[in-house]
């Protein structure tokens, strides 16, 4: 029996890997641990990675070197503190990976391309594709193809995948989960890219938790203001979907009706731009109903869990979001309401965050 210490070396990784991203299957659990830390915090150090994961300094060294060579992480300048040894920060390389997010709404489809730190590099809004009769869901194929064609060649090699955010109910009464899965398989087969499909509001909540104000938060209530109002409870970074796709008719659609009833133009509402507060009493009446509904949800949830933060996300103009947050805090002073930071299309950016979380993070 040979001394196994002197068997041929069996590296943790392939030292002379070619450029481009690793295949999904060889991304080790430990590499995912390190990337999860980095995706959750803007910067870390090898020391901190070791402390948080329990891995030895030498194992962390091998992992980080591997990620550096793959171009996913970069080493920052050493920081000399007044006390103690200097620390060397490790950060994500913004150009290390890209992702495409597509959110299919009621009458338009948003497409974004984001880099590894969630910066939107490209955003387009398209009219919804026509569903061809008899076809399964091939209408998405062209949209995704268009989005991929927009990627610079260099970025195409570093595309982590495509995230697709769909509202509930697109399955026309069929089971949403199995519908999403079938769609994913179809697109992957045709385009050869990894596709991740999720409910759009849940995706928006993921985006806010990965790249937005919710990054440092563990427990909070997430609201998404779209045509309707949607809520998600987030506990220990886990987004709870709930069993029923409940949403409330106090969203932008309600404001649109209100505005139309008074003969005013609803164009700013459709485009998600302009000054919504200028609708004056109509805005006030609507905002009152919206805040009431959020308070009811918060009261219901706070019977079971304590939380201090609400994240309020929308494609509505930032000023409108801030205003709603202030009004909510006034009626429900025990929570801090934070407007979402993921713009311009929280759902599409959220969709784009799915390939990152699936390929680079631990569950």
């Amino acid at each position, binding site marked *: 029996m040979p001394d196994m210490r002197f068997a041929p*070396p069996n*590296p*943790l990784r392939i*030292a002379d890997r070619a450029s481009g991203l690793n295949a999904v299957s060889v991304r080790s659990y430990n590499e995912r641990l390190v990337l999860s830390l980095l995706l959750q915090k803007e910067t870390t150090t090898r020391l*901190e990675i070791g402390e948080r994961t329990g891995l030895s*300094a*030498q194992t962390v060294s*091998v992992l980080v070197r591997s990620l550096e060579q793959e171009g996913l992480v970069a080493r920052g300048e050493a920081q000399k503190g007044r006390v103690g*040894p200097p620390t060397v920060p490790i950060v994500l390389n913004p150009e290390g990976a890209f992702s495409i997010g597509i959110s299919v709404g009621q009458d338009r489809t948003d497409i974004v391309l984001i880099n590894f730190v969630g910066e939107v590099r490209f955003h387009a809004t398209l009219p919804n594709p026509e569903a061809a009769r008899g076809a399964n869901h091939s209408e998405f194929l062209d949209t995704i193809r268009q989005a991929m064609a927009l990627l610079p060649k260099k970025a195409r090699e570093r595309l982590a995948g495509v995230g697709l955010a769909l509202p509930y109910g697109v399955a026309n009464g069929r089971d949403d989960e199995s519908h999403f899965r079938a769609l994913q398989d179809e697109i992957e087969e045709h385009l050869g890219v990894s596709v991740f499909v999720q409910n759009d509001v849940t995706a928006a909540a993921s985006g806010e938790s990965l790249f937005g104000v919710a990054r440092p938060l563990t427990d909070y209530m997430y609201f998404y203001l779209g045509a309707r109002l949607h809520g998600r409870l987030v506990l220990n970074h886990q987004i709870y979907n709930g069993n029923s796709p409940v949403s409330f008719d106090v969203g932008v659609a309600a404001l649109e009706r209100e505005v139309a009833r008074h003969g005013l133009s609803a164009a700013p509402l459709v485009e998600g731009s302009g000054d919504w507060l200028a609708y004056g009493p109509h805005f006030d009446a609507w905002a009152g109903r919206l805040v009431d509904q959020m308070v009811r949800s918060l009261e219901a949830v706070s019977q079971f869990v304590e939380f201090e933060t609400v994240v309020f996300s929308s494609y509505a103009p930032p000023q409108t979001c801030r205003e709603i947050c202030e009004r909510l805090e006034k009626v429900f002073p025990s929570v801090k309401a934070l407007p979402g930071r993921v713009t311009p299309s929280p759902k599409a950016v959220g969709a784009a965050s799915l390939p990152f979380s699936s390929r680079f993070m631990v569950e």
Partner: protein
Amino acid sequence: MRTVLCYGDSNTHGQIPGGLTLDRYSYEERWPGVLARELGKGWHVIEEGLSGRTTVRDDPIEGAAKNGRTYLRPCLMSHAPLDLIIIMLGTNDLKARFNQPASEVAMGIGCLIHDIRELAPGPGGRVPEILIVSPPPMLDDIKAWEGIFKGAQEKSRELALQFEIMADSLEVHFFDAGTVAECDPLDGFHIGREAHEKLGVALAREVEAIGWK
């Protein structure tokens, strides 16, 4: 105070390229001296560079004293406790008399790592941090040394990869000196003053990046 041992060959000893055996850079110029300057007061840097040192081989010409494995044990015991051991060896193993491929030189490095772990000369009897440094590749023109190092140039360019594979397998720190320093054209396999400076600075950054409390 932390202690680092720099275990190497003539390029750790500070032998001057193209010079005579006794020609040596000053402490401040040699990379361990540069490392000491860069790391500052918190570190004690020990130099252990011997010209002609191999990883694990008794040299039939230069003598058994050049075997890096047999000397490593007493050396570690002399200097323990050690927080970090930096090993930069491998060039001498490429001499024609040993007739070894780069992968076998890496096996020798692996052997030294196992020996360090067995002895555990770190603080409190623990295993210290180990940093493997692959030497800069030799230049094609190695002057009068061509015979002694016949065929070594190509193998020397493979050392970085083979060492890194070994470092990854055994989970130790690794640095490729070839990324910051080149051999001096005066003899083609020793590093000059400027390369010592660059290497010392780069290794200081590597040492800091390990993270120390």
